């Protein structure tokens, strides 16, 4: 069953008995690692990510009857997840999206995270380096980066979802990518030294 495409599984869930979760669990298993990672790097909290991922799947299960199949299941699930995570961020007031449109925010010293590079260097694993680099980035840079490069959202959609201008999104992405590459390159260069 795990080899079947999403569309077939979704149709099986919709037509099957309401209390039979086995098919839905195949879908959930297929996307759980990705959803969990997305939730983690959008919220920067591993603990919250577990809860958010759980809630996203529960929400998806009960919303499945309204899924019309116009988009791919993956895209639909991704939209659910992004909405859920952004709502969580707004509620927890940990995001700084409001400040994205404020003049002068580009020059905030907090946007520069050189000091956190050390934590990246301490890691010996690619995945861990990426995780630490992302975790060390501010929301204003990390969230657009995750939405763009991890979720693959177009710039225009990111602008709409974050309530900022398209040019602000592009500027954030430019800075975020530069920042990420710098942190990651430093980690990659220094890894043998850190390990010795």
């Amino acid at each position, binding site marked *: 069953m795990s080899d079947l495409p999403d569309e077939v599984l979704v149709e099986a869930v919709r037509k099957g008995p309401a209390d039979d979760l086995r098919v839905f669990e195949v879908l*959930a298993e297929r996307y759980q690692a990705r959803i*969990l990672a997305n939730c983690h790097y959008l919220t920067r909290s591993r603990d919250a990510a577990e809860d958010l991922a759980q809630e996203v799947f529960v929400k998806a299960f009960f919303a499945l009857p309204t899924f019309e199949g116009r988009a791919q299941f993956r895209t639909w699930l991704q939209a659910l997840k992004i909405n859920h995570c952004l709502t969580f961020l707004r509620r927890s007031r940990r995001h700084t999206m409001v400040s994205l449109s404020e003049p002068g925010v580009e020059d905030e010293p907090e946007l520069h995270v050189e000091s956190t590079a050390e934590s990246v260097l301490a890691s010996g694993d690619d995945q861990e380096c990426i995780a630490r680099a992302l975790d060390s980035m501010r929301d204003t840079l990390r969230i657009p980066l995750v939405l763009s490069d991890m979720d693959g959202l177009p710039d225009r959609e990111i602008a709409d979802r974050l309530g900022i*201008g398209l040019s602000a999104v592009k500027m954030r992405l430019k800075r975020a990518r530069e920042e990420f590459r710098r942190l990651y390159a430093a980690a990659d260069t220094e890894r043998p030294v850190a390990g010795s």
Partner: protein
Amino acid sequence: LPAPDGPADDEVDPGEPIEALSYLDEPVSSSLLQRVRGSIQRRMLAAQLVELSSVGALVALREYMRLMLETINRDDGGTGGSR
């Protein structure tokens, strides 16, 4: 000439995407699916209980109305018979 609202957007080149992020995932604990399953089952149970209680209330109300009508009809019949 570019459109009036175009230049600002086009001036910034956001650069190439970070490819490594496109396939980044996270180790998942085996408990996540169990938690999802438990949460779904709890919500389904709660929905069934709500449905059951609302149906129960409606049935009780219907029975009450039926008994009331029967009583009224019986009383009317009894009164008519005594005359």
